[in-house]
């Protein structure tokens, strides 16, 4: 059973009816092919119309959709010779951050990402994609490793944010994130980051100080969650839809603000409706972003990356 979001209820109803008609026809009863055709057309039009004008809050829900492809789906589909690497060499292994080596379209690369998990068991295993200091320290280690061996870095970001916990604070969550940002900015190799779902605050930017930042059409990227922003500025978390609107957190907004480089179109009805097509188009977009970077040397990459981030917030927005 597909998971439908609240605003998808009318679509769910139509698709439910469609399914019923199909079953009736298959059971050898009446020939309802014409009705089925009409209904399918109607459902598709409704889906297209709904997704053509998603509000920022609706996008937030699509970005967090339980069936949306997660980091490991991308790794599985796009990376050959996948060789996970574990541990920060100081405290522990954090499964919220995926890291390792592999080949992207034949070329050896280092891969990083935040993994939310796709069912209860994996969600718990990966701590819902909320990393702790050891996770960011592992990320930093992998970025430095990539720099030493001239491996491009690919990251896939999907996190509500860094884990807020007592132990995480005691072990220096803030410092770990800061060092991860620093390592990304210093890496003398091509770095392509893709925001695949939720780009939540410091926990996301820790893995996204890249030469090229790509973002899926319905992904969100924000300094704070709409709920968190609403409860602080409106003193009412139920006003999250308003906060989502105000925060300008959609891919389209981020592109207009010159904070990301490329928006990757999603299949009709969102990435979760066609995982294979999504994985393929992200692969193509990453390849297209990576290709020109491969011609640049380390110092040039670093200098350009710095210049790019130094401009953010300085230039007037179109």
């Amino acid at each position: 059973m597909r998971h439908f979001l609240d605003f998808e209820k009318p679509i769910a109803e139509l698709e439910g009816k469609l399914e019923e008609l199909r079953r009736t026809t298959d059971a050898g009863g009446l020939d309802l092919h014409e009705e089925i055709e009409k209904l399918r057309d109607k459902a598709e039009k409704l889906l297209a119309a709904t997704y053509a004008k998603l509000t920022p809050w609706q996008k937030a829900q699509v970005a967090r959709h339980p069936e949306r492809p997660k980091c490991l789906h991308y790794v599985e589909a796009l990376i050959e010779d996948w060789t996970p690497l574990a541990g920060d060499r100081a405290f522990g292994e954090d499964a919220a951050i995926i890291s390792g080596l592999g080949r992207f379209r034949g070329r050896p690369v280092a891969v990083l990402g935040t993994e939310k998990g796709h069912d209860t068991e994996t969600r718990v295993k990966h701590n819902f994609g909320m990393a702790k200091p050891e996770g960011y320290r592992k990320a930093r280690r992998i970025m430095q490793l990539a720099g030493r061996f001239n491996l491009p870095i690919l990251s896939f970001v999907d996190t509500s944010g860094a884990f807020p916990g007592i132990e995480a604070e005691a072990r220096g969550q803030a410092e770990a994130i800061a060092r991860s940002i620093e390592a990304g900015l210093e890496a003398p190799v091509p770095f392509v980051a893709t925001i695949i779902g939720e780009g939540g605050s410091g926990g996301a930017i820790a893995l996204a100080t890249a030469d090229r930042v790509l973002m899926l059409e319905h992904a969100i990227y924000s300094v704070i969650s709409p709920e968190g922003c609403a409860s602080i500025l409106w003193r009412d978390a139920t006003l999250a839809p308003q906060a989502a609107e105000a925060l300008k957190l959609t891919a389209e907004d981020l592109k207009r603000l010159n904070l990301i480089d490329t928006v990757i179109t999603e299949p009709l009805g969102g990435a979760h409706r066609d995982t294979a097509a999504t994985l393929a188009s992200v692969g193509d977009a990453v390849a297209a972003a990576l290709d020109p970077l491969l011609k640049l040397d380390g110092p040039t990459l670093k200098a350009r990356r710095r210049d790019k981030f130094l401009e953010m917030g300085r230039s007037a927005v179109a």
Partner: protein
Amino acid sequence: MNWISEWALPKIKTLFGAPREMPDNLWHKCPSCEKMIFQNDLEANLRVCTHCGHHMRLSSKQRLDATLDEGWQRADIEKVPLDPLRFKDQRRYADRLKEAQAKSGMEDAVMVGHGAIAGQRAVVAVFEFAFMAGSMGAGVGEALVTAARLAVLQDAPLVVFASSGGARMQEGAVSLMQMPRTVIATQMVKDAGLPFIVVLCDPTTGGVTASFAMLGDIQIAEPGALIGFAGARVIEQTVREKLPEGFQRAEYLLANGILDMVVKRAEMRPTLARLLALLRGEPRAEAA
């Protein structure tokens, strides 16, 4: 105006430069020990309680006066586009910003001064917590990048006194991007072989701690300062545990290996002078 303000105000003005808003009542109640302190004594003691040693907030101007030798100069900071998101909650961000600017006489929440600390050249950037809780948006990012460039230009170390509620939500992802932007500022200073010293003041949290403010060559904090990434309430709701005594306070961070030292305000200037001289291989600094 009574006789006290007539007598005390000029004296305070000469001590701290700019005129400050004085309460009608010239006694101040310490929020920690709740004892009364004569306002004049409090200011003379750099706003540290004369009874219990509690460190109250200093304005950025007071901090620069207390840190740099007389004759320091305020650096110009280029204007950045205001309100990139045209953000509005219950009020327009543009209005909040204008109000904060009018009240503080600052463009944004960081003031940059340059001059000397006990005779050694230095650039000092100070967060003004009274300016929208010292939150970091493009204006704050610009101030820190300006401070870093100035430090490199003057071959001077950079000292940042941080005090911030974190990212400026009203600037959305633009404020998030000030995290890498300010990290780049620290890299400029370090690339030039210059010391970068961070002093964490009460409170420093969120995106500010998770960027430049944790990347000092030396990490100092003021006694009792609240320093952390996540807010206490968020943590309590997530882990459903009571927070330990002194959690996220300067002394707790020191015990956990996150800071080099906790330094009382009265000792801050001589400590900075000593550190800078040691790091730069200078002869012993004159008594500060």
